[in-house]
């Protein structure tokens, strides 16, 4: 088995004349927490969208478990074993927590329509398997007591937990989390950090986009810093933290935001 779970090679993306991602390459090791940081507009989410097949790269290649995945459709990439969350918390808002998690199950995404209508036994077996798994995921992400609550009325932190649960529900090997702590209260942050660690302990690989620097420095095995679509540095947290370009780009961003 390959040591790398994901390899991105010379990825470039143009939006019209704007270069959103500029010749970026990196590899993610199996079982690590790999974080991508950078000021707003650095191209982090664009990177996620290309890895998961939502937008095609202009140039470059992406390999998952040694298989080239750019050109595949989002659902095909998801079935290969990449789960993701979206920057804006994206859930099936009108459905309950359990229904949300049921939709993400392998049994749900593949069960043929023909058998849904015609068969009795296969239908019942798959359904109870999927429901069982959905219950297990609900417990795992700490929403066991909210199973029958509609997603729209969950507190924000719980919605973030559920979105991670959705990314997990298809039992992927690699999980891409887009700002899982965005807009989350102080007391809820620890809960989500614990959840991320717990997922890693299950043997899954995590790729993280996050702005809360202290958390990123603590939790990550390695960090990739981007600025204006370019790779600034990729290294261990302490090395990245002391990198002058990173500091300049972050401080620059902070000052720009204030001014």
């Amino acid at each position, binding site marked *: 088995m390959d040591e790398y779970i994901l390899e991105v090679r010379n990825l470039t993306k143009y939006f019209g004349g704007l270069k959103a991602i500029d010749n970026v390459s990196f590899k993610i090791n199996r079982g690590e927490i790999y974080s991508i940081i950078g000021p707003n507009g650095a191209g982090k989410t664009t990177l996620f969208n290309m890895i998961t097949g939502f937008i095609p790269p202009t140039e470059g290649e992406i390999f998952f478990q040694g298989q080239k995945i750019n050109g595949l459709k989002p659902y095909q990439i998801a079935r290969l074993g990449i789960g993701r969350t979206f920057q804006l918390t994206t859930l099936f808002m009108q459905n309950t927590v359990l229904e949300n998690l049921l939709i993400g199950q392998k049994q749900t995404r593949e069960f043929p329509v023909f058998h*849904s209508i015609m068969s009795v036994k296969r239908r019942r077996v798959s359904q109870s398997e999927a429901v069982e798994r959905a219950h297990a995921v609900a417990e795992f992400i700490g929403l066991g007591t909210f199973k029958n609550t509609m997603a729209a009325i969950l507190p924000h932190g719980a919605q973030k937990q559920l979105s991670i649960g959705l990314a997990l529900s298809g039992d992927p090997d690699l999980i891409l989390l887009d700002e899982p702590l965005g807009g989350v209260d102080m007391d809820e942050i620890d809960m989500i950090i614990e959840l991320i660690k717990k997922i890693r302990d299950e043997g899954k690989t995590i790729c993280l986009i996050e702005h809360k620097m202290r958390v990123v420095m603590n939790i990550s095995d390695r960090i990739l810093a981007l600025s204006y679509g370019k790779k600034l540095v990729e290294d261990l947290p302490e090395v990245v933290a002391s990198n002058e370009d990173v500091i300049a780009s972050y401080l620059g961003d902070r000052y720009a935001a204030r001014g």
Partner: protein
Amino acid sequence: MDKKRKALCLGVLILIILIIPLFIKDEYYLHILVMSGIWIISALSLNLILGYAGQLNLAQGTFFGIGAYATGLLMQKMGLSFWAALPLGCLLTATIGFVTGLPTLRTRGHYFPIATMCLGIAIYYVIARWDDVTGGARGLFGLPRPDPIVIPFLGTISFESTASCYYLVSFLVFITIVVIHRLITSLSGKRLIAIRGNEDLAQALGINTMRDKVICFTISTFFAGLAGGVFASYMGSLMAENAHFVTSFEMLLNVMIGGVGTIIGPIIGAIFLPLLSEELHFLGGWRLVVYGLILILTIRFLPFGIVGGIRTALAKRHDKRGV
């Protein structure tokens, strides 16, 4: 216990449906029930694609028309029996649904209703102008009722009476409900709900949304064609307007006023509106104006129709008791 009670309720309901013709002596009311049955099938077909997959298909009435014309023409021009023409008509409708669904369902958001509206207009004009085949603007007349079924030693079932048509339509309504209910309560149904909720998220979870939308669209057009085919044989004549907006509007009204996204809603709508329509007969053409106003007010104040309103009311009562 709960299952037993459900089965009992269902049994009683079926019994009531079976004995209704014994008590209704006025043919006209039986006729309204037959029409309700046809509207139930078509409303459920629209509800499948609109209420579950979340796609507003403005050509659903056109697929009703395709089923009607196909069944009618197969009987009249090809001399087929109703029992062969109806399934063939449904299959033809579903095939056209599949072929037209492939391009239109690639679109999202605003574009899908527009694309299906254009599709509906295109097919309507083909029906309205293809004089040699469809009779064009004059329409199609003299379509036969279903042929009698001969059961050895027991006799024949003829479909000349309204009551026998009532039983036929009730049977088809039953089949439609069973198929659609099984589909939407299954894991495949969960995928449709996911597509309605958020198509991007559904894809990120590994759902082949395009494939599911096309399958759902095809099934939905099959049942629209079924309703149309029965309509053709029962009414005996067709106008090009049957394949146009008027029919789509009728379906949309039944679905929205009954309650979109539920099975019982469109059924209630399709029974309630024709009855209301009888009461409003004195209004003449203004009846449809009233319908339009009802539709607007429903969307404004009861977005989930009668069923949604009842549910909200029940939930409120429940809450009060709880406190």
